[in-house]
Each structure stands twice: as structure tokens, then as C-alpha cells.
């Protein structure tokens, strides 16, 4: 497998995954805001912090209104992490490896990007928004499914999955970080704390699985355990790390990478995540993100084109 192709597969997966995660995040925030009274509502601002583009946003817009934030996150081409840009990058990347990926996968990426561009206004209307975001989620799942079902599970496929797993772990950590810090716990907000933690789970499509695994009660400590340490939920950071490791078993010259991932797993296991709160939680998530970035760095140094 060409180094450049491995790298491109990896990035394509990251961009598709990013578009999907962002679509989920917006949908959930939308639903959350309908449940919360004005004084408690965190509004749309935290979403800008989750994707980490506050500076760009503030340069373009004067306030964090629903309209501005939604436009910025979905169809604004000035935001490098908007859904439209993620899909644009995914398509640009997929286009350079059309010869490698199954034809249906390319067609699915191309179609999604095309329909997003043609229907960009529907993301801005309150009514059209839900259906459009749902469509993004469905189509990205179709892309992952097509790769899974029709591409040989060879090295190229593994790099595709690395991209997806690492992006997921990264997004989960971001959501926890920003969401937990914006949860208010004063006496007015207290009755709604549950709903807010629930929405953290929902942002990761984890609410139903959480209830099956951890019970009906939503406890912040349990949510963190589920999201960071959960070994069975596919969006938990621990799950993603194990996935990375199991994928690497099939890749040539893997000793250093496996050792690197093992190190991350051990470090994560050691953390008493259920007890983390406030600044301690924030600091730990910072560490975790640096760790994930470091895995990417090592992967790139060893296998990608220089």
C-alpha cells in the first residue's frame, strides 16, 4: 500500500466521521434547548468550543445566536470544520484514491457532498434542519457500511478505520470537556442537571446504551465512566483505543505503534474518571487529547508520505 494512499484513507475517514459527529451534536443541542428554560440554557455557544474554532467564529459573527452558530457549523465554508467543509475535504481526498476504494463508496461520498451543496439552505430553516442533519448521519453511516461490506479488509481498510476510531475518540473527549463545563449546578439549574447530562450521552448517541449498561439513573460519574472507560460502547475513548490496537495487529512493522497505544490504554485505566470534576476533569481531558494527538503523530511519522 502506498504511503500516500494510506494517509488519504485515514484522513477521508476522519472527515466523514467529523461530519457525522457534528451533525449528531447539532441535533442533540437542538433538542436539549427545547427542554431547558431560558436562564438555564447554555445556548449554542458551547458547540463552537467543542469544534475549537472560536476565533474564526468571532471574526465573522458578532453574537452566538442560533442562526449564526448553525450556519457556521453546517454550511459556512469559512469554518474549516463545518459539515460542508468536512465533506468537501472527504470528497477531495476520496477523489485521489478512487482507484483504491470501492466504487460505491466514492459514489456515496460524492452524492452526499453534492446533495449537501444543493440543499444547503435547508440546514438553516428550523424545520428542514432535523431532516437534513439526519440525512448527513444516514449517508455517513452508509459510507462506513459500504467500506465495511465491500472493501477488502486489508491494510488500506485498517488505515481507514484508524482515522475513524481516532476521530471518534477525539470528538468524545471534546464533547465531555465542553459539555461538562457548561452544565450549571446552581439552585435554579439543579432540576435540569439530569437533562443536561442526558444530552451529553445523546450527543454521542449513547443514551440508550448507557441505560442498558449503567441503569436508569443519570449520574455524572457514571456518564464519565461510560464515555471514557466503557469497553463495549463504540464511542467511548477506551473502546476506540482497543479498536486501534486490534486493527494494528494486522499492520506490518507494528511493534512501536502497539506499544504506544498500550501505553495510552494503561494511562486511561489508571484514571479514576468517575471522580473527576471541574478543573481536574478539564485538565485530564487536555492530557487525553494531547495523548491522542501524539498517537496520530507517531502513526504519521511511521507510515505516511514524507
Amino acid at each position: 500500500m502506498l504511503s500516500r494512499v494510506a494517509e488519504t484513507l485515514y484522513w477521508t475517514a476522519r472527515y466523514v466521521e467529523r461530519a457525522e459527529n457534528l451533525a449528531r451534536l447539532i441535533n442533540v443541542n437542538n433538542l436539549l434547548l427545547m427542554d431547558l428554560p431560558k436562564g438555564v440554557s447554555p445556548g449554542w455557544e458551547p458547540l463552537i468550543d467543542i469544534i475549537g474554532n472560536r476565533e474564526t467564529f468571532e471574526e465573522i459573527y458578532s453574537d452566538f445566536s442560533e442562526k449564526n452558530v448553525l450556519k457556521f457549523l453546517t454550511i459556512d465554508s469559512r469554518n474549516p470544520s463545518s459539515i460542508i467543509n468536512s465533506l468537501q475535504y472527504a470528497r477531495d481526498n476520496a477523489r485521489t484514491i478512487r482507484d483504491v476504494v470501492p466504487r460505491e463508496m466514492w459514489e456515496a461520498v460524492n452524492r452526499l457532498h453534492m446533495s449537501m451543496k444543493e440543499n444547503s439552505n435547508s440546514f438553516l430553516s428550523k424545520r428542514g434542519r432535523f431532516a437534513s442533519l439526519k440525512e448527513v448521519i444516514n449517508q455517513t453511516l452508509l459510507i462506513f457500511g459500504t467500506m465495511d461490506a465491500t472493501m477488502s479488509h486489508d491494510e488500506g481498510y485498517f488505515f481507514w478505520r484508524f482515522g475513524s476510531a481516532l476521530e471518534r475518540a477525539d470528538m468524545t473527549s471534546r464533547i465531555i470537556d465542553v459539555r461538562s463545563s457548561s452544565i450549571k449546578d446552581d439552585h435554579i439549574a439543579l432540576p435540569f442537571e439530569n437533562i443536561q447530562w442526558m444530552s451529553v450521552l445523546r450527543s454521542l448517541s449513547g443514551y440508550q446504551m448507557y441505560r442498558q449498561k449503567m441503569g436508569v439513573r443519570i449520574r455524572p460519574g457514571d456518564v464519565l465512566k461510560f464515555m471514557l472507560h466503557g469497553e463495549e460502547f463504540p464511542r467511548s475513548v477506551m473502546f476506540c483505543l482497543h479498536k486501534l490496537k486490534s486493527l494494528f495487529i494486522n499492520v506490518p512493522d507494528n511493534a512501536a505503534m502497539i506499544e504506544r497505544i498500550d501505553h495510552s490504554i494503561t494511562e486511561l485505566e489508571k484514571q479514576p474518571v468517575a471522580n473527576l470534576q471541574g478543573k481536574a476533569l478539564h485538565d485530564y481531558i487536555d492530557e487525553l487529547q494531547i495523548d491522542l494527538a501524539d498517537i496520530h503523530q507517531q502513526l504519521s511519522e511511521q507510515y505516511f508520505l514524507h
Partner: protein
Amino acid sequence: MSKQTQSQSQSVDLSGYDGVNFYDELIDENGKPREHGKVLMDYLSQLSTSELKSAQDAADLAVKEMGITFTVYGEGSSIDRSWPIDIIPRIIANREWKQIEAGLKQRVKALNMFIDDLYHDQKIIKDGVFPKELLSKSVNFRKQCVGITPPENIWAHICGSDLVRDKDGTMYVLEDNLRVPSGVSYMLENRSVIKRVFPDMFEQMDVLPVNDYPSQLFDMLASLSPRPLDKPEVVVLTPGIYNSAYFEHCYLAQEMGCELVEGRDLVVERDDCVYMKTIQGLRRVDVIYRRIDDMFLDPEAFHPDSMLGVPGLMRAWSKGKVTLVNAPGAGVADDKVVYTYVPDMIRYYLSEEIKLPNVDTYRCYEPDDFKYVEANIDKLVIKPANESGGYGLLIGPKSTKKQQQETLAQIKADPRNWIAQPTLNLSTVPTIDGDKIEGRHVDLRPFILSSGQSTYVTTGGLTRVALVKGSLVVNSSQGGGSKDTWIVD
């Protein structure tokens, strides 16, 4: 169709079709289908206009979804555009096709002998058949290639020759593309789109298949490997996604199951072998189907600032460590002035007469020819000798006095690099334009593969169509489209 939609469901009407002023590929001068086109005509006339229109829409959508694209330079943000396909196929009788095929094989054989001769003894010049001055002013002659002998003495392994039919029904060769001819992927994709849109038409007619091309191409490439391996490493070298034919580079790599590489993926090591950079380190490459122009292949040998090429590639090639397809320097015969000597080449190398005629061509460097061109510029098509894609061309009857004067001034400055041809009445094929079907002008680009051991010609080729009424310019970069090409018994 139900009664309610009758207003939209008139059947396809070709009664006003103009088959008189031009040679039409489907319909003769009496408005009747040609012998080999009867079944197609019956099929079309059973369709209602709305069925035909929805079939065209389905084809357009398929093209968009399949991402069949090409690039137009200088369009700003949109780097790829959908490839327009008109769904009414262009048909050619198999009987006629066999003759064309023989003519193409003859031509390419002579052209390869010509190129090999130019880079070795230059007998054709010494024998006074081809003028020495033309060679010394050739922009595509590569001195770096002199004395090199590629496998089987073949330089132009892949040739795309453009054919046109004039009003009298004769098929002519308009030019030979021997550098990096493109379009074959569109020939293949057109067929797959038309199969999606008109599956039942294929049941009624025996259309010869086209999809053998990728395996023929692969076999040809693999047979040229410098190492005698069961599975030589064959790669397609692309300049990248900004190239107008990027879609095709991908498509062919995919169909052949080989790597699509960019210059930065390859490296020439101290052993003069070419390697590609993989996740497991370097891996030797045997055959490169390069879709990069000569001048960008190797910054050490040609343009020193080329970012697309691979330093040392010419060294590896000249030492026989890797095969480049087409060979560097093959473009010396891809020159519209050299083209005018093809009949002489065929006589000289093969002792045969040309089977597929050239278009009468005026060489602007010959004083008598130039006088004629000057006096008749409003009737002629003037072409630079070394451009492709329809760039730089003047169509006399459709040009202004000012444009004619400008072109004449360019010719005077560099007569060696200009030719002129009579304006041909290119043949037409019924083509959909909104709700109407009208004749539109077409050409045909078949592709010829030469390995030295065998020669293969595609079944038909790529039919390009000028979608604008009356236009004679079929190039996709100039608003042309294409049609599926059917060779039928």
C-alpha cells in the same frame, strides 16, 4: 403511457430531420435509417418524447452520481465538471469498422517505425522522404532519447487517432495523438451509463462489447516489464487531481487493479531502479503508464522546476530499468506537420498504400501552400502543429477578418508550426436538444495498443459530439459532449 399524458407522449419525430446537407450516421438522405441502424431507429421511434427525455435525465443523474468528470482549466473554484453524454448512440456497421481497424493498425505500425528511425539512423531523412529541417524545428523531438531502444522498438504503445467523416461518407484521419491520449475511460463509462438507461435496447441488438480494454491495456503494459516476473509492478503515474484527465487516470488504475501514483510517491535509487514509497518501505516498479507530459517527467532531464515528475526517471528508463509508456519522445510524431507525411511513411516503411486516408492538408512552410492559405483563409481550418484540445485553432468560415489577420501574422512568424485543412462537413448523429432531436456533428477517437507482439484496437472508440447547433468543435474543453459508440452487425 396512459392516455392522460398524451400531450407529452408523442412519439419521437424525425420527419424534419436534416440528412441532406450533411452525412448522417443513422439516417440517409431520404430520411430512412441506414441498413445497420434499422433496429435502433425502430426502438427510438417507439419511445415517446417524454420517455426519451426522462432517459436523458436518468443518464445525466447517473453521470453526476458516478462522478464522471473532466476538468476545464481556468474555471476558478469548480475543478471538475460532469461529463455530458447524449443517450442516442452513434452506430457503425461492423463491416466498415473492420476496414477502419486495419487502417489504424497500419498507421500506428508505420508511426512507431518512424519514431524509432528518428532516434536511431534517421534513414527516412537520408533517403529524402522526410525533410531534415522539420525535425530540427520539432518541439517534441527529445535529444535525450537519441540512441535509446525501448522494448520491441515500440515508442507509442497507446495511440488515440481522431477520425472524421466528410459529406461524401469517407472516413478520414484528422490527427494522431501519441503523447498521452485521453478519453478511453469515457468510452467505457458511456457504455455503462447507456446500459443503465436503455437495458432493453441491448437485448434487441448485437452491440460489440467495449469492456475488454482495461485487461488488454494491462496485458500490454505487463508484457513490457524489464524483469521477467509473473506479476510485474505496473503503475499509472498522474499529475494529480488538477489534471483535466484525472478521472481517467483513476479509472484506469482501478480497472487494471494497479496503483495510481503521483511523482512524490516514486523515487529513483542509486541502483537506477524506480521504487514507490509504501507503508512497508520501498517497492520496485517495473512499468509506468505515465500520464505526465515529457517535459515534466524528470526535473533532472527536462524542466528543472517540475514538481510533478521524478528526479532520475529518464536515467532509469534509458538504462532499461523501467519501461515508460508511451516512451518519452514519442510525441515527435504527434505533430500536425509530421501527420502530413504519414502516407509517405507507410509507403517507405511498409511498402503499402495508406488504407485510411488523411485529410488534405496545407503545410504553411511551403510557399505555394502558404499562398493558398493566405488567399483562402476564410474557407480553411487553421491549426497550430502542436496543440491539442482545440486550443489555438481558427475556423475560417466562422472567424472575423481581424482574427484571420492575427492568425496569418502568427503563421508568418513561425510557418513550420502551422497547417491548414479544408473545413470538413463533419457527419452528424441525431442528438437530444431539449424537446427536439437534431443532427449534431461528431468525430471518433479509437485507441490503438501496440506491444510489438500484437496490436489491439478498441471496439469503436469515443464519439465526441458538438452539442451546440452547427458547431464543429467537439472537444470537451470547448463545450463538447459524447455518445456511446456501437459497432453492430
